[in-house]
């Protein structure tokens, strides 16, 4: 069979996949809408807690409410972007156990392309995205940011970088599923807790948690440093100023390293033997 991998045909296929995904999501309209709403509610809890505390206090360690919410908006928007692009990586463990991965392996297309293109969890994308957009709209114009071309470029780069960092974190855990080691619970624990911590400026935390959020689970580059690029609060002096520009770099480096490891794991993959689909 003739393999046609030109860019335009890949894009056409991508849109076809997206259309099918959207159709299958809209099959159960009420259910999907309700699910997106549930995700929205769950994510609003931490925002409401922050709001309640800050209405009493005006500011914490020099951070005002709008500035904290601006920082938080990075987490939601980049997560939303990550889910939109990499739902397949989030659900990768499941694909291996159910045997669905085998189906992808025998198709004449790149595996990573199929994982990116073939699945989108619209409910999570919308649930998180709406929280992010609400926070961004509320804060973008009143924390003193000049939305110049340079700043907009940086903002987009930071969002994409943040999404790639989170994708790499999920991919590390998916690597283990090639050796039939289940790490989903551990992954969710580490990922979602770190994410919760990163909702507050990392300068609030003791040194060990700061180091963890910079070097081990680098959520500091998803929220704190991008927000500080715009806000320049005085507690930035605790950290090397070069970190401000590192978000995309950290993202790309992590992704390349993890992708190598992932390909190595793929070589050792042997099917679980039966496909449920």
């Amino acid at each position: 069979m003739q393999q046609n991998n030109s860019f335009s045909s890949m894009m056409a296929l991508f849109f076809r996949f997206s259309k099918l995904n959207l159709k299958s999501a809209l099959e159960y309209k009420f259910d999907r809408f309700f699910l997106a709403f549930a995700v929205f509610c769950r994510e609003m809890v931490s925002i409401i807690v922050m709001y309640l505390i800050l209405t009493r206090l005006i500011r914490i360690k020099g951070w005002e409410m709008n500035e904290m919410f601006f920082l938080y908006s990075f987490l939601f928007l980049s997560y939303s972007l990550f889910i939109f692009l990499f739902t397949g990586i989030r659900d990768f463990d499941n694909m291996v156990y159910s045997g669905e991965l085998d189906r992808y392996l025998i198709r004449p297309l790149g595996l990573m392309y199929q994982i990116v293109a073939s699945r989108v969890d619209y409910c999570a994308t919308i649930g998180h995205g709406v929280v992010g957009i609400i926070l961004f709209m509320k804060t973008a114009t009143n924390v003193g940011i000049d939305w110049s071309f340079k700043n907009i470029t940086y903002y987009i780069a930071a969002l994409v970088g943040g999404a790639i960092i989170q994708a790499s974190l999920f991919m590390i855990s998916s690597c283990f599923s090639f050796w039939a080691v289940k790490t989903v619970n551990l992954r969710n624990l580490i990922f979602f807790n770190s994410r919760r911590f990163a909702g507050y400026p990392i300068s609030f935390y003791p040194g060990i948690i700061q180091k963890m959020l910079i070097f081990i689970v680098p959520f500091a580059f998803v929220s704190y440093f991008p927000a500080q690029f715009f806000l320049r609060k005085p507690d930035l002096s605790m950290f090397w100023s070069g970190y401000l520009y590192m978000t995309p770099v950290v993202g790309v480096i992590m992704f390349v390293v993890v992708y190598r490891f992932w390909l190595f794991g793929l070589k050792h993959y042997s099917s679980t033997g039966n496909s449920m689909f």
Partner: protein
Amino acid sequence: MRKYLEIAKKSFQNNIVYRIDYFAGVINTLLMIFVNIAIWKAIYEEEEVLGGVQFKVVMTYIILGFLMQSIFMMEEYLIESKITSGLISSDLLKPLSFRLNIFSYNIGTLAFRIIMQLTPALIVSIVLFKLLPPFNLQSGILFCISAILGYLVLYSINFIVWLSSFWFYWTFSIITIKDAVISIMSGALFPLWFLPEWLHTFTKLTPFESIYFVPISIYLGLLPYDEIIFGIVKQVIWLALLMIAGHVVWKMATKKLVVQGG
């Protein structure tokens, strides 16, 4: 009685099997406490006393809140999985009360959490985070009674929500929304006096306050004696109302049950 004890024992043993989950659970609780204390320290940095309450007291509140949450976790999808798999039909045929069956299963998990998770987490909290002891002996005892009632109130609310799986194929959404509401209104994450006045008054009219806020306030000695008694009586009344509601919903649910094969 013996049969139900046996179910509780089984669920206790079930929990032991997943050792990594167990250690992760303990570490998770401690990490959450550690980080939340750091946040509250930052909040209290500018003022020693907020709303008439000292930092030490709020810190104890937060620690207790997380410790209680860690043992109050329940098997949220037990009934749903029984219905989708069709196992419920054989459960209903057994000479056991289905509701007591589910309850004893959760009690087994609770016992596991108290013995295996709470004990180490409590020791670390006392040594490392300087958890204050109860205000006095009396409030310590009343705290235990109130905490048990809090668990039962939470269980009764949960049970009604779980029964929704008789009508809906998927209960993830409704359970997630319930969790969001409870975590704000019950005072699990922060002391309820941080709520705006009108909302705080509103939570007093709901059963949610009975779950975490009442027991912890009793522990801290923040309530005068007559308000403690009032709080506990309110817990009992809510528990009774919720049990009646649960009974009604259960009767409706069993009439409705449709099993697709099994």
